[in-house]
């Protein structure tokens, strides 16, 4: 049976907790607190109550018939995380960690955000549970995702712009970590993906793994079997981990993680960490990274703010090493194609992040038989991206 991480928070050679000593006690406290609640019926009951009555779970598993026909290969099912309250899977983890914050007796929360989806989800969970919330966001991302910034502010959160470096997600994580070091005594850091020091990758995976558990159950009800393949986009890797984790031991199920290929992995302008990166240590964890010959982290590049990250969750690095998941990439162009394809065939505008998984779908579906099935984790909806997409596609559509 697959059982990761080990006691010291490592997934094979990856993971761990590379944080300043000032944070170590908080990281250990978090681990202890999480171990207290993770199998506690009262905690889980509260979590599931909010997931059902507030988030709107479970999310549907939808058979995309027109998309299947259009691609002419394997049957395609969509796990509709886009239908969650706040529009993406991010709320699952934000809510779980906000409840954990309360359990630890802390009243303040700091978070980072890229696309703004995790920031909005965290601001929402904090409003719901009466917690103070500060969100760090790269100045570049603030420009790309204005609407989400305003949403966070409406929800009562304070949004801090980060101007350092590439002014995107990586820099927002740096600032959130620095803020946490300085406020660790009364503040919890709600990290937004399966990244960061142990126990974060485990906590976020667990708080997202209802995606895969529901999928397994729903697929079984519909077909009596398991799907042949799962596919999900990967920024830090939380929607993918949530989908994959309950299937890791089901070896007949192939799994595909789609990273952001930006302008193409061969151009060097991309965010495909596993495809184009090498092993190193960033943001508290050992994993694959985009870095130069001197171990300096390089800038990621993607049309999608939520995938624009030069690292990846350590468990994905491990799943790559043991060949359990195949990691591939979709370029900005592929994602835009995917976004249009799903909008036109199914009437669902996906988030640009999720559109990367759709963008890779033709290749995958057509390589499989018509009697086979693929489940796509549709991690979020595209409302937040309409402006970005309009800037790129707008002209063409009116020609």
């Amino acid at each position, binding site marked *: 049976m697959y059982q990761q991480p080990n006691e010291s928070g490592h997934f094979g050679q990856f993971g761990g*907790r590379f*944080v*300043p000593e*000032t*944070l170590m006690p*908080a990281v250990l406290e978090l681990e202890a607190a999480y171990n207290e609640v993770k199998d506690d019926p009262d905690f889980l009951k509260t979590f599931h109550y909010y997931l059902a009555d507030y988030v709107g779970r479970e999310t549907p598993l939808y058979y995309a018939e027109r998309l299947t026909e259009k691609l002419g290969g394997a049957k395609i099912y969509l796990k509709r995380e886009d239908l969650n309250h706040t529009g993406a899977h991010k709320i699952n983890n934000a809510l779980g960690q906000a409840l954990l914050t309360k359990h630890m007796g802390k009243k303040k929360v700091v978070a980072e955000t890229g696309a703004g989806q995790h920031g909005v989800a965290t601001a929402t969970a904090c409003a719901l549970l009466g917690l103070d919330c500060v969100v760090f966001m790269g100045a570049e991302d603030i420009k790309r995702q204005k609407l989400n910034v305003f949403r966070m502010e409406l929800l009562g959160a304070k949004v801090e712009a980060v101007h350092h470096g590439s002014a995107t997600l990586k820099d927002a994580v740096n600032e959130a970590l620095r803020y946490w*070091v300085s406020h660790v005594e009364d503040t919890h850091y709600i990290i937004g993906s399966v990244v960061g020091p142990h126990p974060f990758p485990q906590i976020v995976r667990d708080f997202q793994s209802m995606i895969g558990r529901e999928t397994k159950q729903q697929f079984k009800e519909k077909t009596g079997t398991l799907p042949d393949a799962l596919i999900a986009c990967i920024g830090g890797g939380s929607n993918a981990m949530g989908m994959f984790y309950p299937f890791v031991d089901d070896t007949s199920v192939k799994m595909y993680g789609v990273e952001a290929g930006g302008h193409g992995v061969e151009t060097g302008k991309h965010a495909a960490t596993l495809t184009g990166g*090498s092993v190193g*240590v*960033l943001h508290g964890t050992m994993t694959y990274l985009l870095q130069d010959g001197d171990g300096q982290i390089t800038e990621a590049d993607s049309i999608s703010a939520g995938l624009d990250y030069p690292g990846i969750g350590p468990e994905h690095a491990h799943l790559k090493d043991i060949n359990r998941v195949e990691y591939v990439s979709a370029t900005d162009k592929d994602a835009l194609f995917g976004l249009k394809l799903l909008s036109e065939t199914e009437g669902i505008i996906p988030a640009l992040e999720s559109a990367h998984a759709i963008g890779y779908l033709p290749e995958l579906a057509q390589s499989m038989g018509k009697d086979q099935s693929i489940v796509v984790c549709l991690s979020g909806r595209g409302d937040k991206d309409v402006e970005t997409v309009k800037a790129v596609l707008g002209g063409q559509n009116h020609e």
Partner: protein
Amino acid sequence: MSKQQLETRFKQILDQGDKLFVPYIMAGDGGLDVLNERIDFLADCGASAIELGLPFSDPVADGETIQQAGIRALKSGTTVQRVFDTLKQSKDRNIPIILMTYMNPVYHYGIDAFAKACVASGVSGLIVPDLPMEEEQAVTDVLHQYDLALIRLVALTSPVARQKELKKRTEGFLYAVTVTGTTGERQTFTDRVHQYLADLKVGATTPVLAGFGVSSEEQVKNLARHCDGVVVGSRIVKAFHDGEKDVIKALIEASKQ
């Protein structure tokens, strides 16, 4: 200089009745051409050792001043290799060098190759702020082979049991972090700092140095009274950047009898 020479030197200074003063500078800030000159200047001013920062793109333990110095250093083309090469040009200097950098540049260079290069360029030890004791073994196994010191950091948030363990493990000196936060100048410290330093001194087998936030002569004197000396970072970095050599002299002077 070897780990033993570092320890002997610290002992001599303390036996004279002076306190230890370790200035932090960023390698490559102002260009690598000035590095050896700056080290010599600090040695002449009476610094006990140099904490030499190797720039890293994502320094989460550092505040604004050192972040900016790192960005300047990287922009001027500083690499790990060039820093080693520069240090080698003046290997016979009479002051210990301790490299401070994050885990990734060390890992990427190769832990073994990094340790070898430290020895070849006269470096006595390492400070790695994102390497807590839980993760240190891969590094210490190698450093011990090369007789290099790993200086452990202890924090205000460390519970007593961790403080004790860090006190036991550290080599060269114990780096007592005096703020719950990142590096950068502070006007004041929490009231707990004096007791914290006094507690760390009890049973310590190495000197205990207070660092993070220390930026005035008065703070140097005040903190050093409760331990064996201080590390001063942001204020020194700023002084070099602004050409205020007198400030540096005065800060170091404040650690003397």
